[in-house]
């Protein structure tokens, strides 16, 4: 009951605190007006202890007791300033965020820049209620905070509200601020765990097999090049001749084979997400095997090719696929 109320109040506060025009343009500077300060639990105990000390000093007419409590009260005020200073005027800008598969963990990079000539200490940055990332920022430098968040659904994932807080130096007060930077992460559909083997069609292998031989036929060896798949390294040969160069097995047909991954070729009964999952799996498999692959989904056609860029384009197309777009 109380927890619900607290949660609601907090949400109302966040709605009030976070600017309406989220996401905000970069760099976001934590100006005085958007840094909030409240005592922590430790700060409340400190305050209570101060009141008790004051009562004791009054009761026993202890002048030095008064001095002590006033000094500690002054310290309480000063620590507010220091905590506030530790937060104020940090400049935040969105960093990059590598695409992830749904079900994985996206790492939002947030660049925190300290333009001041002294360091910022013990800042905690976290998304929503997530695990905080603790960082320090040196004088006139910047630090990249990698904020993990679970990627659930494919498509663009906007970074949710990010909280930056600090209780440095005394832990008695907490200064915090909310930011909603313009930072998104592309989430690919999760590749299906179990998928049938690549959909070789008579059409696909026939039209492209220049040598006219089977796709897996061994065709010889050549020196290894960095772009070659490790699967095709002739490990046994390498092991036999010590200190020899890496060799890559060449397969006639295999390198040149191309496969079409087609939306329409999938069974009618499959739903959109299942289809996207299956296609994603095939893309990865095809890429791993070194095949060229093409993609045909409603509204998009990717000519057969292979390589990281091609794979990225394909996965991106799957991630952003919308039913209405056909």
């Amino acid at each position: 009951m109380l927890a619900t109320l607290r949660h609601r109040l907090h949400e109302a506060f966040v709605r009030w605190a976070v600017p309406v025009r989220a996401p905000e343009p970069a760099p976001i500077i934590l100006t005085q007006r958007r840094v909030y300060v409240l005592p922590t639990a430790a700060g409340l105990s400190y305050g209570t202890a101060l009141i008790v000390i004051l009562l004791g000093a009054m009761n026993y007419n202890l002048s030095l007791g008064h001095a002590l409590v006033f000094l500690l009260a002054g310290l309480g005020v000063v620590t507010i300033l220091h905590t506030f200073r530790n937060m104020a005027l940090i400049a935040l800008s969105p960093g990059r965020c590598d695409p992830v598969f749904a079900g994985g963990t996206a790492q939002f990079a947030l660049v925190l820049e300290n333009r001041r000539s002294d360091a910022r200490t013990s800042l905690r940055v976290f998304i929503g209620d997530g695990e905080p990332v603790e960082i320090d920022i040196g004088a006139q430098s910047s630090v990249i905070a990698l904020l993990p968040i679970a990627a659930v659904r494919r498509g663009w994932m906007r970074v949710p509200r990010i909280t930056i807080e600090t209780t440095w130096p005394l832990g008695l007060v907490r200064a915090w601020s909310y930011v909603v930077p313009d930072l998104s992460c592309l989430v690919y559909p999760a590749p299906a765990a179990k998928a049938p083997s690549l959909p070789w069609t008579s059409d696909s292998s026939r039209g492209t097999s220049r040598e006219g031989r089977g796709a897996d036929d061994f065709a010889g060896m050549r020196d290894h090049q960095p772009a070659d798949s490790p699967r095709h390294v002739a490990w046994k040969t390498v092991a036999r001749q010590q200190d020899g160069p890496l060799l890559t097995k060449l397969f006639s047909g295999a390198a040149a084979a191309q496969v079409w991954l087609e939306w329409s070729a999938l069974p009618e009964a499959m739903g959109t997400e299942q289809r996207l999952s299956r296609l994603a799996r095939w893309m990865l498999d095809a890429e791993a095997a070194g095949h060229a692959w093409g993609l045909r989904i409603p509204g998009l056609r990717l000519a057969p090719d292979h390589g990281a860029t091609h794979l990225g384009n394909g996965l991106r197309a799957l991630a952003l696929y919308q039913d209405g777009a056909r």
Partner: protein
Amino acid sequence: MARANRPVSRRQAWWLLAGALAAFLPLTQQIPPWLAFAAGAAFAWRAALTWRQWHLPPKWLLVLLVIAGTVAVFLQYRSIIGRTPGIALLVVFLALKLLELRAARDAIVTALLCYFLVLGQFLFTQTIPTALLSCVTVLITTATMLAASDDRPEPLLQLRRAALMLAQAMPFMLLLFVLFPRVQGPLWGLPQDRHTATSGISETMSPGSIAQLSQSDAIAFRVEFKGELPPQSRLYWRGPVMPAFDGRTWSIRQTLGAYPEIPYPVSGPSIDYDLTLEPNGKFWLFALEMPGNLPPDSALTSDYQPISRQIVRNRMRYTQRAYPETNAGINDTRAALNEALALPSGGNPRTRALGAEWRNRHGDDGTAILATAQEFFSRQLLIYTLNPPLLGPDLVDEFLFDTKRGFCEHFAAAFVYALRSAGVPARVVAGYQGGEVNPVDGYLVVRQYDAHAWTEAWIAGRGWVRVDPTAISAPSRINTNLAAAVPAGEDLPFLARTDLTWIRELRYRLDAVTNGWNQWVLGYNPQKQRDLLAGLGLGEPDWRSMTAALAVLCGVVLLGLTAWVLRNRRRVDPAFAAWRRFAARLASRNVVWRDWEGPLAFADRAARSIPAHADTIREIADLYARLRYAPAPCADDLERLRRRIAGFHP
């Protein structure tokens, strides 16, 4: 918060141990030895835990130890409330809390306990050294709190940061100290143990009791005269009056009727002064004879001793006006005087005979008897000494006729005895005589060794007349001081000796500092606060105006501190500053540098516009580009860039 549950690191544990020790060590004198040892053992255990990284003791053991500690404290004091048991309990908790450092939260609790112990120390002593010592404790404890939230910096840095923060808190402390509306304690009943035994004049006087005080240089009170310092021989500080005599001991009257106001008409010149009385654990207030007014919350006993309504447990300051020439008690009734005539039956036959002889000679003429008595005392050639011989049962006879050596109590007792034997009402008055002016701050300091006893005789038509029999035999005791009056070679308190000039000098200074501390820091009470603020022009200071002034001034300090703390000195890169000067010079030739333009590209453009200086421009741009972008720029490149730009006049 997840942070409060973080385990305490090794370094934090060391810090907490240091803070706890700093808070505990000054208290070792005040707590029973077993507790000091037990706490010391707990600290050692803590040190071993941290050193060897052992496991913390189990919770049940700690609970057991807390219970055992509480019971032991109770058994020691028969109470767990009050000053000493309370502090003993705090020590128990602190020592055991250190064995329970599991999370950052425990660190905060420990630090707060340390602050409480600092307050506890003030219950026993509030001297300047104590204050300095507690500054150190607060500094270490604050550094401990810093370490509790970030344990990475080195200890010295941590201490420096704590010192900086405390220094920033200082202005608030001063403002609050001066302006925070003070309340006169106690807010609730003080536990009885607040009262501590103090040495000083007691309710009774027997041979040797005042001589004993002459060995103490503790301060009884300090006096600030408004006008001229009266002569030493006038400084009779009236204390308890002792009319009752049992043959050996004089004592105060047990049933005290008290006047709420001064009962006698005052006359003659007056002396104004402020008296700061040290706690004496009695109801007594001391005042110069004869008091012309009463301090607040006090009364005058029927034998004219000012007394407070409460036991004097704290240092107090009151304003007094004395009328030395006032005659009090002219109209005293016969019944009251009878008490001042009573003598125990038997004893001291020679003095009784002497008194009877005076009576026969002068009849009812009190003045004549008094003069005769004084003359007799001076003829006896009595010797004033701190080491009088022991006296038998007839001590007055022995003193006056045989040993002839005594201290002021012997003189006073013998004089009153003789007068009473002659039928003249007389009584012993105890108090202090004289005092020493501190040349540094001008205060008159009255110490325990200034304790004195003199007499009062009642003369018809004149009332009570002060007679100091000591002054007859040893006038220098009254006119100068104790050291001048006693024979050389007698044991005097260190501070009463007159031969060590530089020590006296040093003592004067120290004492002036202590007095200033007592007056302005320790004695800063509601009254003093009102006086000070009224003096500062805050008319009619009440809690409202004080709070308003406090709020305004704290606000000002806060603004100043905020400006300082949030200062944002943007340090412009020197190379860039030089480059901007260069760009400004070119701008005067209509070649304007745009901030997105690279230095080399800009130099190309500028060189084309001003071909005459093309080489210099390129050289400068090259230097700047190297300073900016070279992986390891040359140290003197900056200097060269500056010189080139300074000499560049397109």
